[in-house]
């Protein structure tokens, strides 16, 4: 009986830990993508903003829908609308690995890179406006 209680408590705390951990790993916030200076900002329920640290002319806004392992984003910039679906995995508290699953430009399906891409949460210094 005593052994069963220990077992129950271990499982409870493990699950609790997992739940807490999952609660902290939210996509909300600003993410620096790759080495190009691309910045993605996930805001509120479903808003996604795209900008660049190195080039102020790069900008776009859109919406996203996510679940535990994938998010789908639709970003418009001027008259181009891009729709993409990414599978993602947490690789630490501030790092996410993402891999494209589909990609369309103005409704036309296009090929996309197969490799996993790294996104890290941007530090304050990194997100200063581009000059």
């Amino acid at each position, binding site marked *: 009986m005593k052994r069963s209680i220990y077992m129950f408590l271990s499982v409870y705390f493990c699950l609790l830990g997992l739940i807490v951990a999952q609660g902290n790993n939210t996509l909300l916030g600003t993410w620096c*993508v*790759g*080495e*190009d200076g*691309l910045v*993605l900002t996930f805001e509120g329920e479903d808003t996604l903003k*795209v900008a*660049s640290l*190195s*080039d*102020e*002319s*790069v*900008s*776009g806004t859109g919406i996203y829908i996510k679940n535990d392992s994938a998010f789908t984003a639709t970003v418009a*910039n*001027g*008259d*181009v609308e*891009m729709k*993409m679906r990414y599978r993602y995995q947490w690789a630490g508290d501030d790092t996410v690995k993402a891999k*494209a699953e589909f*990609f*369309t*430009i*103005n409704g*036309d399906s*296009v*090929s*996309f*890179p197969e*490799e996993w*891409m790294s996104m890290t949460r941007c530090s304050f210094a990194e997100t200063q406006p581009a000059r």
Partner: protein
Amino acid sequence: MLESFLRNLLRFRFLIICGLLFSVLFFGYYITKIQVDNDTVKAIPPKLQAKIDYDNLKKEYPAPYNILFLAEFSSGTLSEKIDSLHSWTSTFKQITGIAGVSDLNSVQIPVRGGFFGITSDYLVSKKLTLEEEQIRKRINENKEFSSMFISDDESVVGMVIGIQNGADRSVIMDNILWHLERINTNPQITTYVTSEGAVSYFIDKAMKHDFSILLPICFLLVFLLLYRIFRKVHYVVAALMVNILALIWTFGLMGIMEIPFSVVTSIIPVILFPIGVADAIHLLKLYRHNKVLHHGNILNALKSTYSELITPCFLTSLTTFAGFASFSFSEISWTRTFGIFTGIAVVFAFFFNVILLPLFLSFEKPKVKNEYKEIYEEKLLSGFWNFFVKFSIESKKWVIIIPVLIAVFITGFKSVYVESNSITMLPEENMLRKSDNFIARHFGGTRFFSIVLKCNNEKLDSKQKWDQIEKISSYIKNMDGIGNVSSVMPLMHKLSGMLSGERLSDAAISMVTATKGFFGKNYMEYLKNFLSEDRKSTRLQITCSNDPEIKPLQIAQRIDSYVKESFPGWETLISGPAILNESMSSVLIKTQISSLISTFIPVFLCLVLFFRSIKVGFFSIIPIVFSTGFIYALMGIMGVTINLVTVIIMNTCIGIGIDYAIHFVSGYIHSRKLAKNRHDAIKRTIHDKGTPILFNAFVVGTGFLVLAFSGFPPIKDFGILVFVSMFASAGFSLLFLSILISLFGFGKTIERRDIV
């Protein structure tokens, strides 16, 4: 009337001198306001269709002022060349007024990867450490972006230096040329620069050089020649003051009217000095003679001088004015300004010869020191004139000149051609000329134009439209004489391949024609060269080979017909420097013909009215027709092209050269009254007028010959040809008028056996 005029002139001389001094200060102030502008594009008629098209092209595809820099390496690795470019870019960026520098290091290319599937990376990557072979591979895979910065054999690398609006281009060019000299100290590197606006920089430099050196030389030469004639400094000063005042008034007027100063107007002083001085020589020489006759009475001497010479001086000034003023109808602004203001300067010079010379002479002492002495040259040439009389009127030997002239005319006329490319006006050794030849050798030519394609004023967003654009582009590429066609097509193909594996995909079209992009400003700047802001038109940039047989205008017309016939709905706008230059050639020919007609007619009418005889007017104009033809043929034989500057040669020759015919005919009319018969009258005229005419031609011609030392070839050609034309006009006037009068005569000959 003349006596009353001269009497009043002398009575109020101090008041008039004060007025003249005030006018000098007034016009002198406005001379400081004159702006120098040697931009050859501004000389093009604004109503010329090619210019209107060019302005429209620039509105749709605005191009900032750029300088193309090229460096040729005789050795070195690709990495070393790229490093050199990097170092020079940093240096050039520090020059005040430089907006930016583009080279291989700043070129961005689309690459697979990133959040959006496609991202951009620098051709010479800053993220990755690439081996030389990898860089070479990237350059070769992205020729559409790299070809303007590196040649196929990698021996030449280049950069485009952008200049800020409003920056002082001359200072920037000076700075860049200074850096180039330093780079050129490396024996393995030879540098070149070229730019659409750099021509004006080099013309400015040549003009300032000529103005500061040749004008004083011309002034000194005229001073010495005048001193040789008069041996009196105050006569020389008087003759020169006439021209100096005329120039101050003329240039002051230009300042008041805010008319810019160009290389063509810069030769007005060199033209005016000999012309203005020629009348002063006649007036002062006769005055000196009359002063002796009137026993030192200045007023009487002046009265006799002006009553005899005012009409010939007026007529010569009027015909010279007509020669230059005929350019007032020219469509080319440089030529028009030159014609109007040279004409005005001639009128002012006549005015001051009438006003200022008597004022100067009124301060002379009435005492007569010595008798008028025949100058040495007059004695020396009498033997020559005896020979000339035998040759022209006592024998038929002159006939041999006719076939010689015909042969010269035929040979020369065939070789004359028009050149409207402003770079070719610069000397062979000039940096721009060298660069032009170099670029033509390595990059397929230097004659550029653009074709803007529009389809029913709709956005270019469909595969069908881009298919048609590709067909048009391929057609142009396959035409003879086309060196290169740049367009957005290679980028479209590259993106299509990356996105869909197709040659042309809707996704790539959407991305390329998007008005905002995810690839950054360098990419958007690149697209600006080929797509209009509203994405309703695209531009194909065409390079024609420099072969003179290849006519860009004809190529443009063929392209236009092809597009209209094969692709209804498409509109074209074809324009660019090559088209503009070729269209300017037609304008130059038109200007040359119209100015010649509008010179000959008023000059002929002046002669008819002055001599009150159509026959005399006709005789007088024949020598100048021959000398004009001779100079035109000489232009062809010497390889001198008709351009923005040399187009004024013919009118200058007519305007000045006609004076010799006027002096000869006037002399004959005078001699006829004294001679026994026609033959004797001609003989007397040749002896009396021959030496002054030749001497005048020598003084005027020498003044122009100074221009032969100009560093700017068209001005040099102008100086040499006008120098030759003075002797041709003088020689032909003496020869043909002697022959014509001897054969046909005019007026009544008074047979006087008692007068020798």
